[in-house]
């Protein structure tokens, strides 16, 4: 049996950061990655814009993640690549994992687990696209894999559904590679991706963005021949009279990401219905003692810089947990949010640990020109901060000292965004 203090599952930006910080904290670490190379999805993100927050420079995805891989290698942290975890069990002493790779089936034991399993893309069927089942309907990430990693063109003349960031990036990429991008259709009245991507990927290339529009049907028996698009009403239902058929050979979907937590769920980790990631405290520990979550598995981030940050924090916390396992009792208070927030991470505060520096990530439910984030403890305001231009697609980060909140086990914390005028 191979024993470790911390096993990190996933070798993308979150997992790498977690492994490095756990190692820095003195833990015996193993990182398990299912692909043949470290780097996760960043391997295929050859566009720039990564690392502005963390390094103050614009890096490509591979450049950004290479910095972490370099440190990971320098620290001689153990890793097992092309290795797939098939089974996880909680025991009295921690966890037993089973994984397969080209050399066989292996068992590992760990005191703490960091789940850095990333996210997956929503598919055509999950957004109720009907019609035939031809070749040429694929997600933006799959298209990106083909173009950037395999050097192959999956499209010549395409329509993109959804204005998520990967869809916007792929609109530009495919245009640069010689394909014709007929338009990006977004069912919501506002774009889903970052403003900078709308400008740099669509506007600069004169690719039209159709808001409040969706693709309702696909045509073609073998390869896609056309899609049907329609305007939607306020309930996001297609308006029949606006239906239009557009000839194209490819439909690319960028309609949302879902954190991958199937393994976490098998361990009994409870998920937040808003983030689709685990409910965790500010040390990134889930409700299952010893299981930590970070990166896009925890909640879908728009900037990799924050993915690395949560990885780093969860790695440190996991190493500390492994060190003094079982010596402290869990004492936590939930953070209650109302409809003004799309979500808030973490969902809980651990009372006995590091309340002097708590990092919050949140998204507003609505587009707000001005709004105030308010923390209430037992109905009394303990903190507020004013924000300008809050938008659901743009996640906000907040660092806060919560020691002055005067929290006890019985405290009730409410977090809300008040619109201008409400206060």
């Amino acid at each position, binding site marked *: 049996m191979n024993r470790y203090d911390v096993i990190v599952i996933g070798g993308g930006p979150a997992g790498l950061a977690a492994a490095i910080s756990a190692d820095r904290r003195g833990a015996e670490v193993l990182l398990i990655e299912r692909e043949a190379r470290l780097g996760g999805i960043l391997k295929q993100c050859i566009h720039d814009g990564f690392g502005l927050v963390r390094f103050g420079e614009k890096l490509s995805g591979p450049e950004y993640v290479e910095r972490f891989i370099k440190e990971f290698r320098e620290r001689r942290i153990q890793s097992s690549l092309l290795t797939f975890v098939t089974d996880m069990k909680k025991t009295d002493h921690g966890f037993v994992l*089973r994984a*397969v790779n080209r050399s066989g089936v292996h068992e590992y034991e760990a005191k703490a687990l960091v789940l850095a399993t990333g996210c*997956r*893309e929503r598919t055509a069927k999950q957004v109720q696209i009907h*019609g*035939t089942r031809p*070749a040429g309907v694929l997600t933006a990430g799959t298209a990106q894999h083909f173009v950037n990693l395999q050097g*192959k*063109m999956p*499209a010549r003349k395409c329509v993109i559904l959804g204005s998520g960031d990967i869809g916007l990036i792929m609109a530009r990429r495919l245009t640069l590679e010689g394909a014709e991008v007929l338009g990006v259709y977004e069912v919501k009245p506002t774009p889903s991706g970052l403003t900078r991507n709308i400008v740099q990927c669509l506007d600069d290339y004169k690719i039209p963005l159709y808001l409040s529009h969706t693709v309702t049907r696909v045509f073609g028996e073998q390869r896609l021949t056309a899609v049907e698009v329609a305007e939607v009403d306020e309930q996001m239902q297609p308006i029949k009279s606006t239906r239009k058929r557009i000839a194209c050979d490819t439909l690319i979907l960028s309609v949302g990401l879902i954190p991958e937590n199937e393994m976490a769920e098998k361990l009994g980790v409870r998920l937040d219905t808003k983030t689709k990631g685990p409910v965790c405290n500010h040390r990134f520990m889930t409700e299952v003692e010893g299981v930590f979550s970070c990166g896009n598995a925890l909640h879908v981030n728009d900037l990799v810089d924050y993915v690395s940050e949560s990885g780093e924090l969860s790695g440190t916390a996991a190493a500390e947990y492994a060190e003094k396992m079982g010596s402290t009792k869990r004492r936590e208070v939930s953070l209650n949010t109302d409809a003004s927030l799309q979500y808030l991470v973490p969902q809980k505060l651990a009372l006995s640990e590091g309340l002097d520096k708590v990092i919050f990530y949140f998204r507003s439910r609505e587009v707000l020109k001005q709004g105030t984030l308010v923390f209430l403890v037992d109905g009394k305001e303990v903190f507020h901060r004013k924000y300008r231009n809050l938008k659901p697609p743009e996640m906000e980060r907040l660092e806060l000292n919560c020691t002055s909140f005067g929290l006890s086990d019985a405290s009730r914390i409410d977090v809300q965004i008040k619109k201008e005028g409400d206060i």
Partner: protein
Amino acid sequence: MNVRSLQKRLNERFGPTVSVQVKDGCIVVSGHLDSWDKIVAACTMCVDKKSGMHVVNDIRLDGVRIPKMRTPDFQDHALENAAPDVLIIGGGISGASIARELSKWKLDILLVDKESDLAVQASGRNDGEVHPGVDLNKGSLKQHYVLLGNRMFDQVCKELSVPFERCGQYVGFTGKWMYPIIWAYVWQRRYVCKVTDTRILKRKELFRREPNLNPKFHFAMFNPSAGCVCPYGLTIAYGENAVENGAKVSLNTAVLGMEVKNGRICSVKTNRGTLYPKIVVNAAGVFAEDVARMAGDRFYSIHPRRGTNSILDKKSGSLVKGIASIKTLQKNKKHTKGGGILHTVHDNLLVGPNAVETYEKENFATQKGSIDAVFAKQKLTAEALSEKDIITYFTGVRPATFEEDFIIEKGRKTRNLIHCAGIQSPGLTTAPAVALDIEKMVISELKKEKKPERNPNFCPVRKAPPVLNQLSYEERNKLIQENPDYGEIVCRCEEISKGEILDALNAPICVPTIDGIKKRVRPGMGRCQGGFCMPLVTKIISEFLQVPEERVRKAGEGSGILFGDTKCTDEEVAE
């Protein structure tokens, strides 16, 4: 039958444009009408089961050109002058199981299908239920074969290494007052129809077994003999075992015409050459009528009926452990049980199907309305059922006759032809039993010339490749040591290794397409629907075939996935 009174009733309901007559031992309905539903209704009205005659539909649909059968758009001479003892037309569950049973004999067997794989039409778009036959009345071929077929499944699936589970079927009832009626019905099914496992489950027992069903169910009709199987998995396994035993399968091969002389098929024209079979088995599904017409033996008609099923994420699999549906006692006018919820052998839930009459035999496009209707109904079976768990959906077309029964008999006019037609539900369940009878018919026909010999090398057991995630730790480890490709996971949702994909490519019937691999070993069947693994599977296929990745297809001709290298000029692409 009284044709005059039937004609009168037809005219009363459909006006003067329809007429019925008895011709050549068939009930021929002709004329023209303005809607397909009317045509189906008119033909159904003319059904007369006692006469032994079938309804042949010659009514034209006003203003509509019925789409022609889609055929592969290439031609070669691969089969030119082939003279098989038996030509089986159609590679669905019927054709594949017949090929396998016939491979017990020393015969030259050729199965052709116009599609690029087996089980592409009805057999690949089926819910996979192995029916107990409780809903069928005595006297029909369906009922006769369903009882025989159901019993054969344990053995057949064991021999062919296909997962099969007798998970039981529950039909729930909400009205207490229905109890005496259903009690009588169950008695009749047990003792008259010989569906001997039928019984009533009281509320407590029902909820002990299936705790998530509609809490308003007072009792349920229960058939423990009902089961589920992967329909295309079984079809492919039958086909592979047939090939292992010497049969040949030619895909992308469409039958385009026949030369018939003196009541015998002399030759069969395909896009891959002209064949000279001794005997032809018509297992052509929705196109069985077209094949019958080519053979000069069209004595029945097929009216296609579309149905849509949804597949739900495995996470929702625990909602229903067997097969469950709700029954209200309103007269069911549509020819279906209204679908149900089925726990598949791969631990997903399958919800559906519905039933819609259509003249389009190959329109497999899905529609939102079908799914909405099925879910609205099935939420009455299990409240917690949610559309949010849908990972995919698909539509199939059932080949129904107007008599709503199978046609399993020798040609009425053409002697070297055997029909296995009208095989709609429960055709998957009946296939093993029907195949045995067709085998007998073929042999007795061939005997007239020369008695066929037994195939001394016949082995009923398919050499199935291993399914790694079903193995024990030790077995899995051992196999990976022998073949490291078994340790390299390609499909993360379904946990499929590269080794298993290569096994599928090396199988007796190699279908090196994304869909072909998906049907055999399941990469792409999971919740990401191939988002992660499709590029990897494409690469494995291209390496196996030693062709560039842009030559790899999703399914048939023209379904290429890639257009060549990036930064390619148009001229380069054209090359």
